[in-house]
């Protein structure tokens, strides 16, 4: 798989985690792609922290309205039944536990479910934006990311970068597999048969708990 194929593969697998009626917040980048793979028969309400529920597809470029954007600043549309609100209500929805699933990328995740995705001290200081609120407030936190960064593991025993939040990650989905996190550790519950279990563990710093994993299937 090349990088683009990996992203598509991951996004497709994330989409399978969604349930009809879910309120979902998709982070910038790879997570945004998940919207493309939601089955037509399923109703998902996409929330965007800049102030809307009912995020629709990107507008035709000839028809773009600068007054309506997603949290990445990209032009979007509003689906029927959607609505606008201010930042206080938007984060009330997020912090109050009214978002069923949030999907974010990350620089690091660890086997305690902590994650780090907002700063590399001395190098990159973009800020946390809404990420800290999202992972703290959402009912289910899914990290969607490539398994490694230039061959270096991103799934660690313990995050080394400043944390976004402690103990909040429920699931990690990469091109190599699907992992769940609970207080016993990180479990490889599905694996991509393109890789052996040994290869996956070798690409992972954390100790993967493996007990009859299924094959990871996307369409």
């Amino acid at each position, binding site marked *: 798989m090349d990088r683009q194929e990996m992203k598509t593969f991951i996004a497709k697998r994330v989409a399978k985690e969604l349930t009809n009626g879910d309120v979902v917040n998709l982070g910038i980048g790879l997570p945004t792609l998940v919207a493309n793979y939601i089955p037509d028969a399923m109703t998902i309400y996409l929330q965007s922290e800049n*102030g809307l529920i009912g995020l629709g597809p990107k507008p035709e470029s000839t028809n773009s309205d600068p007054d*309506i*954007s997603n949290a990445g600043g990209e032009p979007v549309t509003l689906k029927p039944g959607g609505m606008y609100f201010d*930042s*206080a209500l938007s984060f009330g929805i997020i912090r109050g536990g009214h978002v069923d699933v949030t999907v974010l990328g990350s620089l690091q995740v660890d086997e305690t479910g902590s994650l780090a995705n907002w700063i590399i001290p001395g190098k990159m*200081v*973009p800020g*946390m*934006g809404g990420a800290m609120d999202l992972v703290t407030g959402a009912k289910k936190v899914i990290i969607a990311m490539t398994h490694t960064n230039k061959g270096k593991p991103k799934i660690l025993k313990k995050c080394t970068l400043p944390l976004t*939040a402690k103990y909040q990650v429920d699931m990690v989905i990469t091109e190599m597999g699907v992992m769940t996190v609970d207080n016993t550790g990180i479990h490889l519950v599905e694996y991509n048969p393109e890789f052996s279990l040994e290869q996956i563990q070798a690409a992972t710093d954390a100790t993967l708990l493996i007990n009859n994993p299924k094959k990871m299937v996307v369409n």
Partner: protein
Amino acid sequence: MHKLLDISSIKEHLFDGMTIMVGGFMCVGTPEVLIEAIMQSNVQDLTIICNDAGFENRGVGKLIKNNQVSHLIASHIGLNPYAGKQMSAEHMTVTLVPQGTLAEQIRAQGHGLGGILTPTGVGTIVEENKEVLKVNNKRYLLETALHADLAIIEAYQTDQYGNVIYTKTTRNFNPIMAMAADKTIAFSREMVDTLDPECIITPHIFIDYVVKAGL
């Protein structure tokens, strides 16, 4: 409309060292015309409270580029590399705040609250130098209210009393900032006679001055 303000008079409301809240989210809902007027005033040593640092040549990014900002309080600055450089060079202090916390701190000020308890940031460096309180055995950070001398916001429509509505995702931080500053100046795209009393977002009592589009 008695609250109308000529754009050239904005400088009377500006002073060195002041704190200004600027509405908008990645410049969507940011009153660029008012930003321009602040640039022209060349007021110095500003503390800016805004969701983000804008872009290098848009939004509060223009004030940063013009070296008018000594302190930026925002949730991210990633889209404005110049802001990052100014921060690294210690020409500008940047206080990064989780976006939801920033919203509540601003709201708290307008609503007369000393602060709020949020679970966001517990166990991270955001916790540093903050009080941690337990409620029902869950840990929360005490985040205190954020005040400003002036808020500049972008309205979609303003009625003859100064009541304001916004459009689409331009709303974001504008309504809570309008309540949190000593003085609020709204840039309004359109002036109308009346608005639906059920749909007004910012009551006129929070709007001190209105700058009309095209003037």
